[in-house]
């Protein structure tokens, strides 16, 4: 076995172990986000009207979106732990979708919570509908950027597979 092939095998082995660890972290995070999100949404029936209901709806919707993101992340890392390379088209697509979902999580929960709480007759002021979660938006854009890097890696992987 050549030196390059040995180092490739060793790195892939480490990547598979890291993937399992990150997969477990994502799965745990998805579970707690789902629990928290459902608790928030079901508790609105007992909450006081006004901005409090808006906050609970906003946090509930955010938690449910994060559940989907973490769930997709767990599935992707599990897949990477079973395959021989992280640079596959499916993983690039998943990272792009996760980036878009982070952007949705940044922009959608506040207006959605505003509409729902207004329809229940207990809405906050209209300005709160414009709340944007800037850190989440930044993470979304960074995920799209990481997707570009993975796409470049996919090109190299394809070239390597064709050479072999």
């Amino acid at each position, binding site marked *: 076995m050549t030196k390059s092939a040995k180092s490739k095998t060793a790195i892939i082995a480490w990547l598979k172990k890291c993937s399992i660890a990150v997969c477990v972290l994502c799965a745990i995070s998805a579970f707690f986000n789902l629990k928290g999100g459902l608790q928030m949404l079901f508790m609105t029936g007992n909450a006081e009207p006004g901005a409090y209901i808006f906050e609970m709806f906003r946090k509930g919707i955010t938690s449910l979106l994060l559940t989907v993101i973490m769930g997709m992340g767990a599935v992707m890392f599990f897949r990477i732990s079973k395959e021989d390379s992280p*640079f596959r088209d499916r993983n690039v697509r998943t990272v792009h979708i996760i980036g878009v979902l982070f952007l949705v999580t940044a922009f959608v929960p506040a207006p959605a919570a505003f509409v729902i709480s207004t329809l229940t007759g207990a809405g906050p002021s209209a300005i709160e509908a414009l709340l944007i979660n800037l850190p989440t938006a930044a993470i979304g854009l*960074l995920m799209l950027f990481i997707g570009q890097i993975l796409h470049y*890696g996919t090109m190299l992987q394809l*070239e390597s597979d064709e050479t072999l």
Partner: protein
Amino acid sequence: MEQNHDTVKQQASERIRKSGRIALVITVLILIGQIFSYAAKIIYTAKQPDTLQDMTMIGYLTFRPYGTIPDLIVRCILTFGTMALLLLLFGSLRKTGLPFTERNVRLMKAAGVLQGLQAVLPAVFHVVQIIFYDGISVVSHFRDFFRSINHVTFGVCAVLFFLAWTFRYGIVLQTESDETL
């Protein structure tokens, strides 16, 4: 076919260079936001009246909503350290468009280490500060320690290390590709 691969790789590299510029701007904006945030927290904490005389948990919690000043300073240094490393990483990507280099792997691993410290050190400070309070058992201290770990930051640390290993694999592929040419 080789020319086709080269063209596609060059296009991907060019996209990385352009996206690197946007990533750099976002990181600078986050850094500026963090500077103001930490400055405000340190000033607020410094101005709080000292209600710690009674050595009770209530006195401690009402006195320090953001933690102590040494705790804030350590978190501030670790955050700015991580931001600086990410700025160097994105700067390199903007310049060269080549993500899979040893330098980028080292930068990412260093950022992962700083995030790991940021996840764990505040929990250590928290437990050390309340270790002399009466009525708190050793089991409670351990439980407080694990609860005080910043789980989001710990997750970011794990992802950064994973990305560092992914980039290392990318270096092997890049070397193979360059040698084939």
